[in-house]
């Protein structure tokens, strides 16, 4: 028997390969000693991993000279500077929360090597994103206290944080994963982090920063956020697949009540995001209006729900910001990383990923 990975064929013993496959489950899988990646059970996981690896980027690859010039010049308003500081402050916290959840919740519960692999990559990308924020702060010469302190005591930010942190902390205990409520708790965590947080609540500030980028303001920062956004679209897809797999392997969790619970969770996430946009984001400064922004949040939330097989919350919402979808369509000519493939590699196995992104 042979296994195919990265265009390689690896010889295997059939009987032992079957034993490895039998151990692979999302919940209740067994640890496989040694090299247990082949044969793959979750091909989507390895495929997404290969995409993520091919999209590797490092912040210093992106020039910041223009951003520094603009930052110091009169062509930029204080409100625009403030938006950048907010973006840095918010994502410094948020990327940490996501990475921490990946390492200490998801990676601890999954055991199939291809799942460990792709979620470790996920955590690694949060590191890269956090590092990109460090690079922005140091390039612009910002006071990091200020970026952090912007959100101290802002209630709507605290509520957004509590929404995810409380959930993540509640899963950090020994859980009997044969119990349906614990399986559902894990599924909810996966839904919250993938669809609600990375998939919806990141988009308020993404939208602000990318609308500056669209006006040729802060091209380096905008570019880094585009790369971040491309990574996020992989994370959303990855966590969607994981949720799907848990549902297939444990159909008993997918009750009408649980589906409604997930929809309500998304409802809560969109409410928090809209409050945050209303209280914190000076949307008119970038030429947008709050109604469109709220509609955009409804639009993406509905997309997240329907791709997970759940009913939309609003239904029939038009995308008010089609330009934002183009922002993550990073063209090959923008490849400034020598020898690396940065073009987003569409794959037939992930047929709807481009569709689902925004």
């Amino acid at each position: 028997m042979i296994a195919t990975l990265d265009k390689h064929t690896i010889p295997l013993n059939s009987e032992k390969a079957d034993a490895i496959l039998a151990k692979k489950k999302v919940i209740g899988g067994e640890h496989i000693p040694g090299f247990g990646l082949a044969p793959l059970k979750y091909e989507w996981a390895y495929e997404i991993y290969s995409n993520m690896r091919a999209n590797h980027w490092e912040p210093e690859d992106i020039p910041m000279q223009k951003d520094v010039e603009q930052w110091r010049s009169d062509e930029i308003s204080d409100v625009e500077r403030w938006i950048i500081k907010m973006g840095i402050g918010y994502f410094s916290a948020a990327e940490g929360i996501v990475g921490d959840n990946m390492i200490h919740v998801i990676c601890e519960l999954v055991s199939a090597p291809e799942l460990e692999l792709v979620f470790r990559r996920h955590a690694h990308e949060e590191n890269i994103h956090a590092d990109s924020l460090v690079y922005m702060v140091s390039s612009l010469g910002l006071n990091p206290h200020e970026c952090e302190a912007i959100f101290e005591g802002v209630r709507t930010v605290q509520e957004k944080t509590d929404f995810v942190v409380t959930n993540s902390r509640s899963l950090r205990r020994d859980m009997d994963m044969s119990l349906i409520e614990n399986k559902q708790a894990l599924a909810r965590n996966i839904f919250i982090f993938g669809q609600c947080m990375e998939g919806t609540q990141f988009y308020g500030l993404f939208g602000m920063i990318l609308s500056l980028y669209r006006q040729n303001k802060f091209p380096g920062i905008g570019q880094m956020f585009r790369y971040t956004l491309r990574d996020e679209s992989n994370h959303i897809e990855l966590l969607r697949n994981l949720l799907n797999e848990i549902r297939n392997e444990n159909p008993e969790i997918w009750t009408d009540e649980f589906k409604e619970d997930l929809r309500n969770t998304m409802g809560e996430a969109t409410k928090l995001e809209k409050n945050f946009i209303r209280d914190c984001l000076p949307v008119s400064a970038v030429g947008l209006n709050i109604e469109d922004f709220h509609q955009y949040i409804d639009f993406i939330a509905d997309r997240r729900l329907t791709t997970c097989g759940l009913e939309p919350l609003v239904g029939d919402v038009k995308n008010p910001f089609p330009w934002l979808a183009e922002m993550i369509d990073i063209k090959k000519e923008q490849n400034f990383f020598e020898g690396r493939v940065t073009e987003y590699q569409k794959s037939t196995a992930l047929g709807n990923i481009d569709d689902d992104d925004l």
Partner: protein
Amino acid sequence: MADTVDIVLGERTFTLDRNKAEEAYAAKKVINGRNSMFFNILPLKYNWAYELYKEMKNSHWEPAEVDLKVDIAQIGLLDESCLKIIKTALGAFAKSQEMFQSHGIYTVRDLVTAPELKLVFGRFVHEENTRSDVLVHLHGSLTINPMECAELAAIPAFASKQQFAASKLSPIDRNTDTTKTENKQAVARNIFLINQCMEGIQCFALWASIFSLAAQGKLPGTGKVFNKLIGDITFRLSLFDQLLQEMVSENPDIWTDNFKDELTHYMVGAVNLEKELISALPVADAGLEPDALETYIEFLADERLAACKLPRQFHHAASPFPWLDDQIHLVTKQAAAVSSSTLNTSFDDDDL
């Protein structure tokens, strides 16, 4: 007292409290600091951690980029004994994370509180993936069955390594109360065991054999892959050396004479485990004299001890295999004193 600044933006007012932010900086500690999942890395307190992170990412490598054409042509022509060494090495490498009980590093990450330390720990998840990519690249390119390698690595010399680690590690978890001295020592003990005694010493007889074969022109690509892997290990050794020292300086109650003796004793045990492996492998067929290799392991153990400010135990005057020092990125304390200023740049081009 509080130095607050009100920033008004349109109809909104934001209050910045500088003292609060500065308190957050002061609360950065290796353990028992401000516990947060936030990634507020700046302002840096542990500059060395971010510098190390930068060195690590500047050394980013992809296993698939290492050319194995020569190895593919040679693999069928290797003599039985050398082939056995390579397959045993792959089998041992595939299970080294279990053997070394490396998952304990995640518990340490959970207990460590400063964000820049969490960042540099985050490289570990990436390096675990690199290991997986290495196995795909080597097994796939050389068409070697991983299950056959696993059987070759199912020998007592490897089992006793895993048993050693498992029996000595302290049972800590995310709920461990790290304000108690014995628990702080438990964290330090696990760091030292996993990193210095296991990853820093074990299986080096195998890695040395691979480098010795590569020096003879046999499987040079495989040699290059392991050279890069040991480069990653070297960064981790450096991370944990410095982390241990930082912990000790913030918590001097850890570093008692008894505790130092205990750690030193583990290292002596670790050397014995590796000697057991040397006698189980045909290292002479790879061109390594077994006695000299044993001496090399002792020499290496002394370097690991010295890096952690623990007393040397074997006192060899010089490395028996200076060529091997280069392959395993061993910068001895004497050499480091001379060339520390060039260490940063040395990773730029020759290693990538």
